[in-house]
């Protein structure tokens, strides 16, 4: 019997949503949870009751798959507290693993336990089942993988896949995805309520930097690849990352240590995405490290090795190509060969990389986007696309923001979200106090006014007429 290990959830669109945001629009996003894993779509700003995402994620089916359910929640993002617009739970047991995946509309509901008083609209979702790990290996191997990975999986929230020989590439990609998700997280800097989502840059740094040393117990010395995962490199990589597209920084992790970096036209154009500076810097650090490195099979994931055979397809059908890349569907010939070539060294990288990226993030937020930046898709074949982030940010900027003088904005430089919340909170408190004072004053004045009106209304005449001059001024 076919025993899928993962579900792939594609969030297509929503209709008839409640509007809870300001100005009659939402900053709308969807979270997808299954077991301990949780993913999130991009945030659609100025979203009306109909929203389209076309975004996809993949969740590992928990061992208690027969009782697990996919929980989809639609939110309106808010600085202080996101508003739930609606949610739907889809028990896995209700789904037929053999059915051809198709789009379905699910009716959104309120929080469980609450009465469903209002119409919350519907969410269109496609759910398909996939087998991701060990399915092609023999059973014993599969078991082995599972057990050896279990500890990692705990850290990783199940998103780290097998690193067995067949799945290496995927594993690496998974890692990259997770990185991507962290970066996503970082840039959006969204939720602080759940630890898994609280991506401050500091966190990110810690988690990524610390890993090579602490979090990979299985790591053997000969597998160590300091050129690739040196702390320094990581650190500055993520520093840069906070300003730039994460695309290029991800690239760094997959760049082989000691491998001579030869910019290809494609790589060069990657710089246009905003990560160019970093790319160059990381390259030089790679070169600097190369003397330390033990000769080994270079892990080449840079575009110059991978892309050429595939470039045409990419251009023709980006979406499919992209899905293929990320989700390792049946592979094209060229991909498979490449994969075999790289497999052993990739494995090493996986072991190094994966736990590191995931250590502190049990449920990475990641989302792949179909409708986003085409350019990025073309270029970032083997990397995770984050180029879209730039665009999202541009879209998301409140128009009023642009009218704020630069000098004012500068005051908030370097302030964290928490700082800003505290600031706003205090201001709000002050405003409340002022409001109350005003009200008291108004009431007091009204009281006085009342006495005047009832006793000597004459003095309320406008223009004011003095008793003695009244005769002249009164018409």
């Amino acid at each position: 019997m076919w025993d899928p290990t993962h579900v792939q959830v594609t969030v297509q669109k929503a209709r008839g949503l409640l509007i809870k945001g300001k100005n009659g629009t939402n900053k709308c996003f969807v979270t997808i949870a299954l077991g301990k894993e949780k993913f999130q779509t991009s945030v659609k700003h100025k979203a009306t009751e109909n929203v389209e995402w076309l975004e996809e994620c993949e969740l590992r089916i928990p061992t208690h798959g027969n009782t697990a359910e996919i929980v989809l929640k639609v939110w309106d993002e808010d600085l202080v507290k996101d508003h739930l617009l609606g949610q739907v739970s889809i028990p896995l047991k209700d789904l037929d693993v053999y059915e051809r995946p198709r789009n379905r509309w699910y009716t959104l509901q309120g929080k469980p336990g609450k009465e469903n008083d209002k119409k919350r609209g519907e969410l269109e979702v496609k759910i398909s089942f996939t087998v991701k790990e060990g399915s092609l290996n023999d059973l014993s191997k599969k078991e082995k993988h599972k057990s050896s990975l279990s500890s990692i999986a705990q850290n990783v929230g199940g998103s780290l896949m097998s690193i067995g020989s067949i799945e290496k590439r995927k594993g690496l990609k998974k890692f990259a995805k997770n990185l991507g998700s962290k970066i996503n997280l970082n840039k959006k800097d969204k939720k602080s309520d759940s630890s898994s989502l609280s991506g401050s840059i500091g966190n990110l740094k810690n988690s990524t930097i610390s890993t090579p040393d602490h979090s990979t117990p299985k790591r053997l010395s000969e597998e160590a690849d300091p050129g690739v995962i040196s702390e320094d490199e990581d650190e500055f990589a993520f520093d840069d990352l906070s300003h730039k597209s994460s695309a290029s920084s991800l690239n760094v992790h997959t760049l082989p240590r000691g491998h001579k970096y030869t910019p290809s036209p494609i790589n060069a154009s990657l710089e246009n995405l905003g990560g160019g500076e970093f790319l160059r810097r990381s390259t030089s650090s790679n070169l600097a490290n190369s003397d330390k490195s033990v000769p080994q099979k270079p892990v080449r994931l840079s575009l110059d090795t991978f892309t050429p055979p595939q470039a045409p397809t990419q251009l023709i059908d980006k979406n499919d190509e992209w899905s293929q890349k990320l989700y390792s569907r049946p592979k094209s010939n060229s991909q498979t060969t490449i994969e075999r070539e790289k497999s052993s060294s990739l494995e090493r990288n996986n072991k190094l990389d994966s736990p590191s990226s995931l250590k502190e993030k049990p449920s990475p937020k990641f989302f792949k986007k179909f409708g986003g930046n085409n350019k990025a898709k073309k270029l970032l074949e083997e990397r995770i696309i984050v180029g879209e982030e730039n665009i999202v940010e541009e879209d998301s900027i409140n128009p009023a923001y642009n009218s704020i003088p630069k000098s004012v904005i500068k005051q908030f430089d370097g302030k964290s979200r928490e700082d800003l919340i505290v600031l706003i909170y205090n201001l709000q408190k002050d405003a409340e106090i002022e409001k109350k004072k005003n009200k008291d004053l108004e009431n007091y004045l009204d009281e006085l006014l009342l006495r005047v009106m009832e006793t000597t209304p004459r003095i309320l005449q406008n223009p004011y007429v003095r008793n003695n001059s009244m005769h002249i001024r009164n018409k």
Partner: protein
Amino acid sequence: MTSGPYNYSYIFKYIIIGDMGVGKSCLLHQFTDKKFMADCPHTIGVEFGTRIIEVAGQKIKLQIWDTAGQERFRAVTRSYYRGAAGALMVYDITRRSTYNHLSSWLTDTRNLTNPSTVIFLIGNKSDLDGQRDVTYEEAKQFADENGLMFVEASAKTGQNVEEAFLETAKKIYQSIQDGRLDLNAAESGVQHKPASPGRPLAAQPPARDNCAC
């Protein structure tokens, strides 16, 4: 218009009501000073303007009260409405919301004035016909249904402002003649001057030595 300060037979108390920004103070100013205040500040307190008019050969002093158009119920609200012989209820023809609130203004007026109070509906800013948001016909129908008098006016150009105030006065005067308005009732909003000395109500003539000092 010049007339001696004592040459009037009646004082009518008017109030002007309506949403914020509809032009209440501007209408008052246009009527009393024949000027348009372009940058009229928001009215905060309560004040009144006066002007003496003539109806059917009788000099009548209009004492027109004006206050902020805020929705908050204020301590002064009751006092403000009490004893009004005429109420000018104003909306802005370019802002539908101000028209939509008329029914609540009307309810307040009915509740806080006496039955003989003449209510006159004014659609202000008729000079801004291009930005019109409320048709004349619609407002006219509303006025008819509620037994209100109605004109569209412009505090800016002065169009129909005079008419609104004068028509209201005529109607009040008519009521007096018809005996529908009891001059002796404390809250009629009308004072017959010969009978006025020392009257405690708002509608005191600003006259002579009944000064409190």
